[in-house]
């Protein structure tokens, strides 16, 4: 296992299979929290935090608890419970550790439970079966890297999209297209641009 594996994992999960534009995960926060660049960045940092921890936790639970007992079919229930309680835990931890961080991230944390990107990455890590390719323990590193790359891709898109949206607010859009419809068309054009990145890896 060389560094190329990690590099490929980051590039492919961040740019080629971008979480919002190519895989349609996390569209709700993408449309909901992208009106201001500041809140978009706050959301991205919170998502990165939870996504990495949640995918490590769900990977460990799947391979060390569910698989030995042959109860893989309850993985969805187990993962969503882990994510919901993790979000609660992270919120409590941040509240105790740093008041400043809590003020900037705290409002986004409850929203993350229903962010499909988190559960989506946890599920797709299991579905892409890193354990047979790299072994259970080394697969954990690949899964973590993938989660990190996905979160980076989410942050990139949130930042780009919120910057465009701030400009859109000031421009003269027909009344019918104002708000979400024109944003969706912008997102479509961004997705077209990302199609061009398909051949990198």
């Amino acid at each position, binding site marked *: 296992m060389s560094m190329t594996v990690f590099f490929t994992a980051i590039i492919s999960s961040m740019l080629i299979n971008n979480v919002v*534009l*190519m*895989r*349609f*995960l*996390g*569209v*709700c926060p993408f*449309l909901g929290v992208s009106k201001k660049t500041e809140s978009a960045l706050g959301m991205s940092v919170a998502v990165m935090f939870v996504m990495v921890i949640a995918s490590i936790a769900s990977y460990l639970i799947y391979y060390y608890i569910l698989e030995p007992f042959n109860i893989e*079919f*309850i*993985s*969805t*229930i187990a993962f*969503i*419970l882990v994510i*919901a*309680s993790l979000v609660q835990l992270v919120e409590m931890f941040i509240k105790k550790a740093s008041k400043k961080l809590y003020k900037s991230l705290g409002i986004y944390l409850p929203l993350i*439970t*229903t*962010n*499909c990107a988190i*559960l*989506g990455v946890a*599920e*797709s890590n299991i*579905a892409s079966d890193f354990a047979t390719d790299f072994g259970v323990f080394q697969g954990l590193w690949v899964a973590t890297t993938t989660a990190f790359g996905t979160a980076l891709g989410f942050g990139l898109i949130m930042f780009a999209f919120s910057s465009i949206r701030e400009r859109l607010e000031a421009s003269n859009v027909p*009344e*019918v*297209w*104002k708000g*979400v*419809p*024109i*944003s*969706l*068309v912008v*997102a*479509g*054009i961004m*997705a*077209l641009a990302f*199609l061009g990145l398909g051949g990198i890896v």
Partner: protein
Amino acid sequence: MAEAKAKAAKTFDPKKAAAKKKGEMTKMANLTKGWIKENPIFAQLLGMCPALAVTSTLETAIGMGLLVIFVLTASNIVISLIKNLVPKEVKIPVFIVVIATFVTIVRMLTQAYASALYDSLGIFIPLIVVNCLILGRAEAFASKNKLIDSAIDGIGMAMGFMGALMLIGVSRELLATGSIAYGVYLPLPFEGSILNLVVDPERTWTSIFYIINISIFSGPAGGFIMIGILLAIFNAVRIKKAKKREAERQAWIEQKKKEAMERKRKKALESAGDAA
């Protein structure tokens, strides 16, 4: 006379509107509210992830819609049954576990009886758990209302969701391939395609249907753009309606003002007559 009555019923009446808002919804209104007025996708923007991801063909859209109808109705029923047993602090986790249970059932059933659909929906079957629509209905409706009302609400809302998915699916598949296939993903005993617009299989430039093969609409970019277009159409209708209602309201206010003025003048004239 009857015509005038019908017209009067159609024109704006604020008292009636207020009564409608305050009063209890009928069962029929409860069922149909999610179809257009509170449509999950076009009016509330809930559940956008599946609306973008599984609508590249009509069949996958129908499949996802059916799964959501089952999960939403079942979870609404169970949640309205246990609503008094659940402490307020752990409400959301309990609801999520209930929803996840039904999603697991649905996932196994799909895998067993419709494996083509299972493969094409892929990760979006377990992701029904975090569909904001389902948790939203559980929180906003089923945890406050009775069993039958909750079940009707679940069916109605999910039907609105399925209708929206089907509309997006039809438009995307038609623009992308020029026809609508059936029997590919759903376990139907027959397969083929309806509404085949590509009459010229060679697609030479002389064919009028040459343009109906915009393959971008089956990809991710087409999904975003198609929903944007449909939302804009939805908005246009809504804005037109709101303008009409506003004009009616203004006319009603003008009329009442005129009547009041008339009454005042009459009174003043009468009092002047008395004084004289």
